[in-house]
């Protein structure tokens, strides 16, 4: 059995200092629409770190959430087709022989990596899928699905700290993980119970780390479509605990977690009139600000609870910078 966990991603640190590292990058549809604030800020920070995330040509939907039925092979067509595109990208000389595929959306990460693990585990499934996609070249199992956080962790806190121009001093940041980056543990990027991978990075940005046990509590996931109030209750718990522990903001990498924690504050306020809203950001938005890349790359207009008043009260953003944008 080949688990990707055993092949830890190769370091980019050294190379990035001299010359740009080009990495195939899978965006996913949410990042092109409602989570443009994740994509824009991540691409900008990556560039500042000497990494060029090259969008995969002709990528399709990741496949979203691996199905749980027995005969679910059809659901692996989409993810594996994306992995074939990485091979094509290399064949076309667009990826410098790089077999890592970087993801940003933790849901896409989860789906792609699980499918990859599945076909590596079950060659007969891979053969069926390859036969089905007879118009494409065969997938050979060589692609490594990685998350951007792993790339950052690999670069190291020191390297990241070097780019910081506006430290996030005095900002209490509670990292939030949810589940798709961590579970199932065969594909997770960190300890599913006690993840820490965001810690060093946030600290390197100068933020005050607010670690709290609610960081892995379920955000409610797709229940949000069925029963938004139930999800609002879950979010209420997560947010109030973070606030109580001293957080000014929360960070995440998952558009669905972000939606549940951020947008559902509308429902929370309806039920709990005394609830004080709290901004939920993508960690990359904070990085972009700390790197001095300006609010342009952050698309704060897409955050439901506007983080700009909080950020400017901490002196991390200039007041005018967002006032003029709003006008």
């Amino acid at each position, binding site marked *: 059995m080949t688990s990707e966990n055993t092949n830890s991603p190769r370091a980019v640190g050294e190379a990035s200092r001299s010359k740009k590292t080009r990495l195939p990058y899978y965006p996913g549809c949410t990042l092109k629409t409602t989570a443009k604030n994740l994509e824009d800020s991540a691409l900008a920070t990556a560039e500042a770190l000497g990494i060029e995330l090259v969008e995969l040509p002709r990528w399709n939907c990741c*496949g979203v959430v691996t199905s749980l039925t027995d005969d679910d092979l059809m659901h692996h067509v989409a993810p594996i087709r994306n992995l074939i595109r990485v091979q094509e990208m290399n064949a076309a000389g667009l990826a410098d022989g790089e077999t890592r595929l970087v993801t940003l959306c933790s849901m896409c990460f989860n789906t792609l990596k699980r499918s990859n693990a599945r076909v590596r585990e079950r060659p007969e499934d891979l053969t069926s899928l390859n036969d089905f996609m007879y118009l494409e070249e065969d997938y050979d199992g060589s692609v490594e699905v990685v998350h951007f956080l792993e790339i950052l962790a690999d670069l190291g806190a020191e390297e990241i700290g070097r780019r910081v121009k506006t430290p996030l001093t005095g900002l209490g940041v509670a990292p939030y993980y949810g589940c798709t980056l961590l579970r199932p543990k065969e594909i997770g990027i960190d300890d599913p119970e006690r993840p820490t991978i965001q810690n060093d990075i946030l600290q390197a940005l100068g933020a005050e780390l607010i670690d709290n046990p609610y960081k892995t509590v379920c955000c409610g996931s797709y229940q949000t479509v069925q029963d938004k109030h139930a999800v609002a209750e879950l979010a209420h718990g997560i947010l109030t605990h973070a606030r109580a522990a001293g957080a000014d903001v929360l960070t995440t990498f998952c558009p669905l977690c972000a939606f549940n924690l951020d947008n559902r504050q509308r429902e929370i306020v309806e039920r709990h009139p005394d609830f004080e809203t709290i901004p939920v950001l993508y960690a990359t938005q904070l990085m972009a600000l700390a790197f001095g890349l300006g609010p342009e790359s952050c698309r704060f207009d897409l955050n439901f609870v506007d983080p700009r008043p909080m950020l400017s009260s901490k002196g991390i953003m200039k007041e005018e910078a967002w006032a003029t944008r709003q006008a």
Partner: protein
Amino acid sequence: MGNQTGMMERISESTRSLTTGVDTKDVEHWVMIYIMGRGYRVPADLTIMTAMEFAGYRLIRSCGCRQGFCGACATIFRREGEYKLESALACQTRVEDGMSLVQIPFSPADAASYDIASEAYAYSVFSKHYPEVARCVSCNTCTKACPQDLEVMDYVQSAIKGDFGGLTEQSFDCIQCGLCAIRCPAEIVQYNVAQLGRRMYGRYGSPEPAHLKARIAEIEEGKFDEALDRLAGASTEELEKLYAASERESDG
């Protein structure tokens, strides 16, 4: 100049089988095809459409432009001994020996109601009117079915990404034949999704040129009235002179 009546007759004689139906005595090469399971011997150089007519079908459905533009003649067929189900436009595809075929006279599909003037230029326009696009499993069956050889899956994916320009580019040659939609396991009606997307792009993504608006204003102000009055009232002789004197715009 020659014998023109004779010439016209020679021309019409050379195209007789095309304009009046095929006469068996003119045929040299034959093939067997199976129309809905029943075998017919037909001339080898016909299209599926003209072969059906040769066999005696009077087409009412599944025939329109006869030239590859209207999408009425969607046809599915299998070659002898093959497992693959192929699709084609009957008017654009030559018959092959052993071909077994049926036409798809109609593809039931709901088209949404909308007023593009009041829609948001964003992905949400698709989730609002065709929420099923999100069900695409990227199986690529649609692409395989497309007789225009479009990357249908890619344009569906462009819709999901809210990439209106990409969708327009990839779906532009779609003749709305319906073959993709009847084969889609996710029951997406690709060509309607694309139609909505292209109109959104046309209206919002590819703005109207300034010179067009300027010209409409000039016409409304009556800038050309005098010249047009003169032309509309001119005699044939005057017009002939003006026409002969009219200079062609330089090519540069």
